[in-house]
């Protein structure tokens, strides 16, 4: 008997004209690890909420959802709560109580489980997910990644048969996202709990899944094993850009052999199929050649150039006298008219750097200059008139109005003046927009102050492939208009595709800064997945170009000779 069987499910939200789900059929067996993907707004969340009865919104529904052969509506409330677990997107907002142990116990408390049983299950979950050391802490003291692990653990203490997750890693940094997905995979392997995961970042999740479903405009358009689907997808399909770099490389170069799904598989595949193109000597040569290519070194020569838009000179910062140094002797020049991306892990000081550049905090040593003038010399308010604007990571903090129209009016903007089209969204509530749309609205509010230097904190966080591309093009366009952009990000891929120069921040110091090719070719861990598979190339497009060059391609026969 299948664990979950959805047949011909259609759903229309109350008051909406178009159905959000059309004729969806899907079947999960016990122990499956299924991945559901699709662009933002394609109906993933709507589908997931149909599976969890407590979360089903109002609307017209036809078709059937069977859970272990029983219609979902016929489950008792306790059964429905206990047997289907659900994890939401934002780590923070689904936490209910003020203690880690209490959060873990919450579901069991609701079910009225006796104390000794509860103790055992909570203890097991805390150990499985490595939460013993923070058992007595408040969830607010945990990092985003551990908060989400806590939410995962809190959903599994009730020992559900099926765990449904709605983009749980979208708001995590890449390392935390990997940790989370690894925990999910382990849960599936070791306990046999079936998992239905909605994700739009497939780089780390696709290789872990056994089943892969693609959703487009309320329909499931593809389904099967990840390799099958990667092979079947039509070129130019909306999901193509979301596939892992290895799979895109495989698709772009004529689909030789089995489709690689992870970076490791991709590396092995490149070595096997293109031995000539992947040698280290060749790589260095190509890297050098690429860095001579024009578009990436557009910056003006150093001599007689205008002063840098932003410069840090031996800048130190700490929050309190006893606290640790967040910035240590930081040196950085951001030239006028470039996009500079600062990469770095959690706690490397990225956000602090931006706040210091925006004049929100003042350094404890060294100096910061904006357009050649020391930041301290800008008096009250003139820093803003000079055009330095910071877009925070959580753009929602900028939205205080009930509709997009009012937000724009608030900033003195007309929808038609914007470099992008917000007109279909004007009457929506800012909180109801998707992540990408929110980012655009936030950007327009920032552009309203006519910045010369734009500071962006993790602008691509949580965006799907399509939106990341839009954002990249938009940032390029703003640069053409003469706006200097400094962005900080965890995301090597986004930086490689967007920035003119990249820098690595580690423990508050800028360890390396150069144009993307030199930067990513020189790194072995902090680099793009393409660069790991094919040293010397940093984006899929470049790698495809190099592998399809005449002479690069060689079959297994050549491999044997090499």
């Amino acid at each position, binding site marked *: 008997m299948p664990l979950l069987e959805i047949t011909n499910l259609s759903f229309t939200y109350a008051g909406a004209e178009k159905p959000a789900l059309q004729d969806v059929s899907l079947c999960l067996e016990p122990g499956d690890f299924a991945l559901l993907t699709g662009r933002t707004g394609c109906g993933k969340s709507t589908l997931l909420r149909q599976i969890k009865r407590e979360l089903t919104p109002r609307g017209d529904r036809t078709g059937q959802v069977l859970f272990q052969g029983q219609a979902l509506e016929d489950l008792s409330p306790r059964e429905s709560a206990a047997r289907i677990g*659900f994890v939401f997107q934002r780590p923070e907002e*689904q936490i209910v*109580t003020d*203690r880690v142990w*209490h959060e873990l116990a919450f579901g069991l408390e609701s079910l*009225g489980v006796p104390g000794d049983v509860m103790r055992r299950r909570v203890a097991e979950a805390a150990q499985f997910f490595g939460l013993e050391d923070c058992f007595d802490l408040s969830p*607010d003291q945990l990092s985003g990644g551990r908060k989400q692990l806590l939410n995962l653990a809190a959903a599994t203490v009730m020992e559900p048969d099926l765990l449904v997750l709605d983009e749980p890693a979208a708001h995590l940094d890449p390392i935390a996202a990997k940790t989370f997905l690894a925990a999910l995979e382990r849960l599936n392997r070791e306990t046999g709990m079936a998992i239905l995961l909605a994700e739009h970042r497939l780089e780390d999740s696709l290789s872990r899944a056994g089943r892969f479903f693609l959703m487009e405009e309320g329909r499931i358009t593809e389904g099967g094993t990840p390799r099958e689907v990667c092979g079947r997808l039509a070129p130019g399909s909306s999901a193509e850009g979301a596939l892992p770099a290895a799979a895109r490389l495989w698709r772009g170069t004529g689909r030789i052999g089995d489709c690689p799904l992870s970076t490791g598989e991709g590396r092995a595949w490149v070595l096997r199929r293109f031995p000539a193109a992947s040698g280290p000597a060749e790589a260095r040569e190509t890297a050098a050649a690429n860095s001579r290519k024009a578009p990436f070194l557009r910056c003006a020569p150093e001599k007689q150039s205008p002063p840098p838009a932003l410069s840090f000179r031996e800048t130190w910062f700490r929050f309190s006298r006893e606290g640790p140094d967040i910035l240590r002797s930081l040196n950085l020049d951001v030239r006028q008219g470039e996009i500079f991306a600062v990469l770095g892990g959690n706690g490397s000081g990225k956000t602090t750097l931006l706040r210091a550049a925006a004049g929100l905090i003042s350094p404890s040593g060294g100096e910061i200059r904006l357009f050649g003038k020391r930041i301290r010399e800008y008096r009250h308010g003139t820093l803003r008139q000079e055009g330095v604007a*910071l877009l925070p990571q959580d753009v929602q*903090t900028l939205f*205080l109005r009930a509709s997009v129209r009012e937000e724009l009016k608030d900033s003195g903007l007309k929808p038609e003046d914007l470099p992008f089209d917000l007109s279909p969204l004007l009457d929506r509530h800012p909180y109801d927009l998707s992540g990408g749309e929110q980012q655009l609205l936030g950007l327009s509010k920032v552009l309203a102050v006519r910045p010369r230097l734009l500071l962006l904190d993790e602008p691509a966080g949580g965006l799907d492939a399509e939106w990341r591309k839009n954002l990249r093009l938009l940032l390029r366009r703003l640069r053409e208009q003469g706006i200097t952009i400094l962005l900080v990000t965890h995301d090597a891929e986004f930086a490689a595709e967007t920035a003119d120069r990249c820098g690595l921040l580690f423990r508050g110091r800028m360890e390396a800064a150069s144009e993307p090719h030199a930067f990513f070719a020189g790194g072995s861990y902090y680099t793009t997945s393409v660069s790991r598979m094919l040293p010397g190339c940093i984006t899929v497009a470049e790698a495809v170009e190099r592998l399809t060059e005449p002479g690069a391609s060689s079959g297994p026969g050549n491999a044997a000779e090499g």
Partner: protein
Amino acid sequence: MRGLRGRHPGAVCVYFLCVLLPVFFGMNPVTAGLGLLSGFFLLARLLRRLPWKEGLGYLGIAAFSGIVNPLFNHNGQTPLFFLNRNPVTLEALLYGLVMGLLIAAVLLWSRCFMLVMDTDRLLTVTGLLSPKFSLMLSMALRFIPLFRRQAEKVREARKGLGLIREDNGIDRMKGAVRVFDGLVTWGLENGITMADSMAARGYGTGKRTRYPLFSWERGDSLLAACSLGILAAVLAAKLLGWIGYEWYPRLIVPEVSLQSIGAYGLFGLLCFAGPALEAAEKHR
């Protein structure tokens, strides 16, 4: 031996109540004095130092009450002198002093209570009474700091865009109102997700239980039983008139008898059990 923090919060609550009730309702200089003295020792043990300044402060409260009461209360038969043609009586003076002592003792013990009972312990006790109420408290305790942090984030986000000017008071007021407005929206939005998350985990499907963070041991039973026993004994002594004081119109001190000495002795034992437990606590 373990101190009060090592005992089950329920037992600790019973103990504190059994000390506080006779002190507060007794109007008795002996129980108030015992309470004050033992409370001082308990505080010293909990703070790991002798809190001289605080101790003097509590005595000050007692003295203040002793001075103020006779100025406003003119009952009593033994005038000491007249002030504005009103008698200042010995009874009112003594009553005020005892009242001050017991207030000081109650304050001192409450301070100790708050030192012993952290959030987890308080929630455990409220959870024994009503798991639902305890959950609400827990959510409130989480939400308040969350709200404050979000307010700071919103303020900084607006500052980073130059949308907040802090040059004059009116601008600042306007900005604060705007920020608060947005925070309410954010809170509601946040609340929807939280409500979903609660429903998804079976909230409201039946009777709640509570995770037993602390376990109830034999020592806890012993502590609670002794406390309640002594409370009953003191109550009995009071009802039988062995330790009842009369203040107005004339001070009547009860006879010193075997029974009254016994009741005071037991109560003293109870009062000093707390500091003794703390003192006997093994270092971790």
